[in-house]
């Protein structure tokens, strides 16, 4: 990148199933004000806005247009990004392009989903080609059910391991003041008693539908150093799309195809001299819609060898006090406003690097982090954030 980019402010709403007390625009405005307060900036300091959400879920045409006054973007440049679950990351990526191109100095990325407006499962089912796969895609749950079956078969992992992931997520969520689902689980048995949605995915194996927003303020190197005592640097990022293969949506159920995660990691890790992620990076915030997906992402993101993800779980390596903490915030399993979910991963990583994550701050000192996103038919976005460049 021609010019370096830093995160100088992050803000999020409290996430919940329903937010009747605010309109969609007002909800997003809350996150904007939180980010401005965090950055100690005035909205007039923002040069351009990039909006991100999955527009089908709220059933609004050009949803950004309806919130321009409420986010302070009247008379300002900007545009909206749409896409799959990776939308938020792609918006932050484009924000970096807008700065590294020299076009703007300070860019605000505004992301949200207000799931109480519609039905996310129906929205995801509508991603099926209507002339082709109508009726053959039932929300995201059945896709992740297939992924779970494949993983169990190949790796020897048991349902207990998935339950441990929910316990970890719930502990994080209970420490995170903004998270949505705080169940207060205490044992693996409680998770295993939850009902199946689509076999073998249980209620507690899956993410909720959250209403919430997240905002990240990006600035050029020159401005960032003046603006924030603790800027967090976007060292690098990579977005990789892929076509669905072999009748699977989230990767290849036969396990024989390359995954977008492999491609993204190989590119980003190589550019940054990363050969051993767990040693060279301090923490990860990953986009895990299901417990099983978290375990297999450990492998696809090269946190460990193939079929060994569940062993990391068993060892507690990815717990908040572990050697390589993953999703201290409670992650997607606790909070999932889809358009904002990837931006939350980036914002939470930035807080960890700053040491500002409060009760869910990782035990070890976090100097660098990987934030990921997952979307579409297994698209990947990968961000590498650092305290110093």
């Amino acid at each position, binding site marked *: *990148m*021609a*010019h370096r980019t830093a995160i100088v402010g992050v803000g999020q709403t409290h996430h919940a199933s329903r937010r009747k007390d605010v*309109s969609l625009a007002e909800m997003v405005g809350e996150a904007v004000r939180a980010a401005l307060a965090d950055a100690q900036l005035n909205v007039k300091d923002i040069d351009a*806005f990039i909006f991100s959400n*999955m*527009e*089908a*879920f709220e*059933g*609004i*045409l*050009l949803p*950004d*247009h*309806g*919130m*321009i*006054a409420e986010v302070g*973007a*009247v*008379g*300002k*440049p*900007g*545009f*909206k*990004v*749409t*896409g*799959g679950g990776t939308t938020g990351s*792609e918006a932050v*990526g*484009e924000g*970096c*392009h*807008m700065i*590294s*191109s*020299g*076009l703007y100095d300070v860019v605000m990325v505004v992301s949200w989903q207000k799931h109480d407006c519609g039905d996310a499962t129906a*929205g*995801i089912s*509508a*991603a099926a*080609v*209507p*002339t082709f796969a109508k009726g053959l895609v039932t929300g995201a749950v059945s896709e992740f059910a297939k992924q779970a079956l494949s993983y169990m078969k190949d790796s020897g992992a048991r349902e207990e391991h998935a339950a441990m992931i929910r316990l970890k997520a719930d502990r994080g969520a209970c420490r995170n003041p903004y998270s949505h689902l705080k169940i207060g689980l205490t044992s693996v048995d409680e998770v295993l008693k939850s009902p199946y949605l689509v076999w073998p995915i249980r209620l507690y194996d899956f993410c909720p539908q959250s209403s919430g927003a997240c905002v990240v303020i990006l600035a050029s190197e020159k401005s960032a150093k003046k603006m924030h005592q603790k800027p967090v640097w976007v060292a690098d990022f990579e*977005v*990789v*799309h*892929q*076509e669905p293969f072999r009748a699977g949506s989230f990767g290849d159920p036969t396990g024989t195809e*390359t995954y*977008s995660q492999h*491609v993204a990691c190989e590119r980003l890790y190589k550019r940054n001299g990363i050969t051993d992620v767990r040693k060279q990076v301090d923490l990860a915030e990953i986009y895990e819609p299901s417990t099983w997906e978290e375990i297999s992402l450990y492998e696809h993101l090269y946190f460990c060898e193939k079929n060994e993800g569940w062993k990391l779980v068993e060892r507690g390596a990815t717990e908040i006090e572990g050697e390589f903490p993953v999703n201290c915030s409670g992650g997607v399993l606790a909070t999932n406003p889809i358009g904002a979910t990837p931006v939350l991963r980036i914002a939470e990583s930035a807080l960890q690097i700053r040491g500002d994550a409060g009760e869910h701050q990782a035990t070890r000192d976090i100097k660098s982090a990987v934030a990921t996103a997952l*979307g*579409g*038919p297994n698209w990947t976005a990968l961000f590498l954030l650092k305290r110093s460049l």
Partner: protein
Amino acid sequence: MADRVAIVAAAQTKYHPNRADVNEAELAYEAIKQVLEETGLTLSDIDSAVTCCQDAWDGRTIASLNLQHVVGAHFGHEFTVAEDGINAAYVAMSQILSGDHELVLVESHMKESQSDKSIIENAGFDAILMRQLGLDYTSAAALQATRYMDKYGITPEQCARVAVRNHSNAKGNPFAQSPMDITVKDVLKSEMVADPIRLLDTKPISDGACALIVTTEERARKLVNKPVWITGASNCYDTHYLGDRELADCDALVKAAKKAYGMAGINDPFTQIDVAEISTEYSYQEPLWMEGLGFCGRGEGGKLVDSGAIAMGGQLPVNPSGGVLPGNPNTVAGMARIAEAVLQLRGDAGARQVEGAKVAIAHGYTGICGQHQAVMIITNV
């Protein structure tokens, strides 16, 4: 700008009222194939794709899923902008300037015939304060037209003249959907759609696609003989609620143009620009947007229409292609303006060529009464 960004290829499909014979991918690929052939590139050479589509129009969550294969996105980058396509070119420009990408494919498509215009557009109005009133883009445009015409004394005849000129210009454009010889009288006698807007003041339902290839200066010189250069670009949002806006003055366009002109070193647009392609979905918009673009003072758009200066052969020909009125789909419209500007600057515009054009402006807008405005300045020198 320190570095220059080049457009090395531009293609459009012929615009058509109903392309039921193709799906979105096949429609887009018609335009994409042409830009690849023009440059001798293959999809494997492309390192980033910027597409422009909207879930509501395509009837599919993550509408760009339709396109992944035809833009070569497998294990590559694809980025979807949900505004008018002109903004996709702007994003491509930022990707080139950032140094992260070298060859960017820009695509926009739309099949308006595929759904019900009023239902889709109505979903773009604030759900609490406006949507229940049953407004669509045309009835909102009529509110803007009345306000603008009343405030500045713009006449229905002046608007009709816009429709006549654009439909006539379209006769020289092989991609145009409905080129026509019509008179001011024909327009004024055509069916009233939403007072004061008549049928011939509006564009028909249209299907089509547009594609561009955007790259670095160095690469452009190797690829083609006649690259053109983006020298300025910007966009701007206005507020949403119609009652909060002075609809007769397009403040967002004024701001977007000012920024783009600043980048391109333009201080007198009317004399420094040789050809303009402006998104005019309703005839009243052309004088209004011309005011916003600074071609004339506020309220003087009608006089400029009357003057003949914007006709073919005039000082600043506006929409030699016929523009949007003879039929361009939403979302494609602004990107098509870039494609037309590219042809003009290369001298490849055939019967609609403006001789010796060196500086062109492309304009696109998105949303209700032009809530989001975007401009791009392109040159061949």
